Every structure is written in structure tokens, then in C-alpha cells.
């Protein structure tokens, strides 16, 4: 599959560093799947679908900056949707989102809500202005926020917020956020023997995005984040490289 053309219809500034781009096509995706976004002449990068017809981009470098600065009428190339996506299950579930990690979790919350699932959302960010999709999430369930600087909600990391819940009353945990936050959440779930009812959406360096090149594989399973993931069950990740190291574009291990 070669990239399909998508024309930007709308750009929504979500936070000082994060924007949502809506385009003229709706890839037929399930929550948690991603697209490879080709910014012509610049780069191609993976992005979760945060909306049926949209992505939500944090400006962290070259490609994401060019994307963030796009205007309606500009166009990009899209390959996908790729990856496994979340498995929708559970009656009483918890969504744990950190930073731009909220992106793949928003369509998940919408779909679970439609199924009548009871949802608790824990939303974290560095500071209150960077909280992503707070309003949208709150329409799908009960929401609780945490900020590193205490500018809103719980002051501290998201695992602190988790402590205020009876985790055993949930039957599925959906998690996406910065690597160290995901590791902390996983460890906490593990302490409660809950890792096997959790799903984590991972980030690794993608080149092909379709399971061929091997740049995104994780240790020790050798699973491909782009094809076997990006969503993995917590028990697969427990003894994995998650939170220890990842590999850079050359394949070299980089410690967190």
C-alpha cells in the first residue's frame, strides 16, 4: 500500500504543544491503530488515529513541527491503518493516559462508552495547559487529572492517582503515555496481580510500519510493535525492555 492523499480540513490547537489535524478521509480503523503520516519532503512518522478522520500531534521535532504548522488545504500522505489496536473488553474499565498518549485512548473511550462500559479516566500531563482531551474524555466517564507541577488536579505522577482507586474493582486497564509512566503503571498493576488485564500501547522507532524491517522489535520476545502491537497485554511486557531501554534509528540500545 502506497500513501493515500489526505487533505487537511481543520486544525485544532489542543494545547500549547499539541494540535489535532482532521482530514478528508476516514481510514477504516479500530481504536489503537495507527497510520504512517508522510510529510512530503520531510519524513514519515507513526501517529495514532485520535479521531475517525484525525490525528493529534505533539510538536517534538522536525516532522511533528511541520505537521503542527499545517493549515486547512495542505495535504499529507497516509499509509494504514496498521497495527493490532485495542481489544475491547471489560464492564468496568480504567483508562490511564499521559501526555499525547491520550490520542489513541480517545476513540477507545468513545467506543467503550457506546457499549455501555463504565469508564474511569486518569489523565496526566506536565502542567494543566498540556492536559489533552480532558473535556472529550469527561463525556465518556468519570475523569481525574494529575499534573507534575500540581497546576491542576492531583499533584504528582499518575500512579499516585491510581492509589486512590480500588484497582481490583476494574476488569481492564488501558494505558498509553511516556515510557517511564507506563513502566510505573505496569509495576503497580503487577503488585496487584492485575497485569494480565491491562493493555499498553507502545512507542518504538518505526521505519516500515508493516512488520518487515525489524527496527521496532522489543526484547526479549522479538515482537514487532508495529505489527504484533502497538498494543500489548501487560503480562507480555512485564519482563520486557519496557522502561529499561529502546533502540534508536541505528538499532542501538538507548537506556531510559
Amino acid at each position: 500500500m502506497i500513501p493515500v492523499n489526505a487533505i487537511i480540513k481543520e486544525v485544532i490547537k489542543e494545547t500549547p504543544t499539541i494540535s489535532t489535524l482532521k482530514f478528508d478521509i476516514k481510514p477504516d480503523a479500530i481504536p489503537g491503530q495507527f497510520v504512517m503520516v508522510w510529510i512530503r519532503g520531510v519524513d514519515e512518522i507513526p501517529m495514532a488515529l485520535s479521531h475517525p478522520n484525525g490525528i493529534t500531534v505533539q510538536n517534538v521535532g522536525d516532522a511533528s513541527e511541520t505537521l503542527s504548522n499545517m493549515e486547512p488545504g495542505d495535504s499529507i500522505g497516509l499509509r494504514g491503518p496498521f497495527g493490532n489496536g485495542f481489544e475491547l473488553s471489560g464492564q468496568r474499565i480504567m483508562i490511564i493516559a499521559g501526555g499525547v498518549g491520550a490520542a489513541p485512548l480517545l476513540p477507545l473511550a468513545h467506543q467503550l462508552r457506546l457499549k455501555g462500559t463504565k469508564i474511569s479516566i486518569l489523565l496526566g500531563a506536565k502542567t494543566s495547559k498540556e492536559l489533552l482531551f480532558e473535556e472529550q474524555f469527561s463525556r465518556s466517564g468519570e475523569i481525574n487529572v494529575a499534573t507534575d507541577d500540581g497546576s491542576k488536579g492531583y499533584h504528582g505522577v499518575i500512579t499516585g492517582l491510581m492509589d486512590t482507586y480500588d484497582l481490583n474493582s476494574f476488569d481492564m486497564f488501558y494505558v498509553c503515555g511516556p515510557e517511564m509512566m507506563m513502566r510505573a503503571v505496569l509495576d503497580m498493576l503487577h503488585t496487584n496481580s492485575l497485569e494480565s488485564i491491562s493493555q499498553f500501547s507502545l512507542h518504538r522507532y518505526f521505519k516500515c510500519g508493516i512488520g518487515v524491517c525489524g527496527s521496532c522489535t522489543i526484547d526479549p520476545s522479538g515482537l514487532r510493535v508495529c505489527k504484533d502491537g502497538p498494543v500489548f497485554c501487560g503480562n507480555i511486557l512485564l519482563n520486557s525492555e519496557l522502561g529499561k531501554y529502546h533502540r534508536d534509528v541505528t538499532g542501538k540500545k538507548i537506556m531510559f
Partner: protein
Amino acid sequence: MTYPELSIELTGLEMNNPTILAAGILGTTGASLKRIASAGAGAVVTKSIGAIPEQGHPNPSLVALECGLLNAMGLPNPSYKEFNDELMTAKEGDIPVIVSIFGSCCEEFCEIIEGLEGADAFELNLSCPHSQQYGAAVGTDPVLVEKITRAAKTTASVPIWVKLTPNVTDIVTIGEAASRGGADAVVAINTIRGMAIDIYSGYPILGNLYGGLSGAAIRPVAVKCIHDLYRALDIPVIGVGGVSRWQDAVEMMMAGASAVQIGSAIYDNFTVFSEINEAFLTYLISRDLIIDDIIGLAHRRVEQ
């Protein structure tokens, strides 16, 4: 699983079966290579490794076309120094691990060989079609091919395979050069130069503008190269290019391949190794054949 019917000896390496993971496909980490071993491959070839870290070309670096894949990874690798760890892990898979290596001169190849002691064999990548100074840049020149092969052979204590590019007027000339240099086997073929353009914008799709075509599209080209090399050389030919079904593997062996490598087919089918091996076993048993009966059969048919 090990079936005596499928076991082969290839340049001194014992293999459970004649299917091998091709270079550059899921060969970045030791864990990934181990996973391919569990999936049934008889041996694995690693991603091509160089002397210094390489980032490779910018993305997009691989797209699937209607027919085959087009890629320009650009040989990203962390250098052999970083790769030793991965190699050690890969070897836990208990099948031969062949390290693909590339360089721009004899010295570089030898440095890498000396730096990777655990390799069961080396595959010299003299054939990557989309790397400026490596790969096909040296692989189209028979004099260089012979020289590098000889240097590698002298340095290494394990078998040397030489991987050839089809992007030449006459692949046999290059194969002969490798053979003269002392190669234990040749591997044919690497990808064919190709390009795709985005018709919405006019931009070439690959970050590197062009790349190499692999997959089903190139199988007939690979079969022809293997056929010609088998006729001309006395060393084994290892077939690669577009194998995705047991029939393809049989076809390549009939053309002259002693074993086949599989790359792009992984895209659709992670179980391709075990599927091919099982069907191949049934084929052999039901016809009361051994592998040697079919290797090069096309040549014997025509001589009749």
C-alpha cells in the same frame, strides 16, 4: 521440528531445513532473530552490519506495491561493536546465524569479520542497490568482488557467502569473480532497482527517492539468475527473491538453489517458514524424492 528429509548441509553448516531468513528482514535484534528460529527457519541472516553506526535513509523507507515491496532502508545499523550482543542472543535460537556485512573496502570487511566472532558464517552484501558507496557500488565490479571475497575468506574462519545484485548486465561474471575469490556460496538475488512516485504530489515516495524491489514481482528474475549461476559455478547457489509459497521454493531449487532465503513474504505471513517446510516435506515424501533430486532438476531436464 526436525525432519531428516529436510535437513541439509550447506557450506559446512548443518541446517534443519533449507529455508533461511533473508538479510534485512526482522534481523535488527537478537530477540527478533530467535523468534524467526522458533517460527521454523533453518538459518537466519542478520541485517547488514557495517563498521560504523548508520541511520539509514529518511522515511518512507518501505512501501508495499500491488506487486512486491519497494524499500530503501539505507543499511541502518549500530555497527558491529554494538551488534555483538544481539548476535549472542540470536545464537540462543540454536540454528546457524549468518551475519550479513557491508563495507566500502577490504579492510572494512575484515575489521567487521574480526569483530564478530560468534558468526556461523558471513554473507557479504555486495549488492544493496540504494546505498551510495556500499553494496552494489562495489558489487558490480568483478575485480572488487574477487578482491573483497578473497580478503574476507582469508580473515574468516567460517564460511563466506557472497550476495549478488541482479542490477548488472551479466550476473554470472560477478558470481564467477566471487567464486575465484574463494566464496563458499553465492546468494542471488538482492533487490532490483525501482522507484515509485506519488501521483497526488509528484514526490518520489521513498525518502531516498528510489530503492529496491523485492517480493513476488522479482521471483522470475531471481529464478533466471539462479539458473545461470548454477550452470556456471561449482559452489552452491542460495536462492532469494519472491519466495512466499512452497512451490516457489521448489521452483528455485529446480533452477539450482541449494537452499532458499525468504524476506518480503514475512509481510503477509509470519508462519511462512513452517508452512513451506511442511508442504515441502509432503511434496518430497509423496513423490518419494530427496532434496538432491530436485536441486538443479531444470538443467537435467533440458540436457535429456
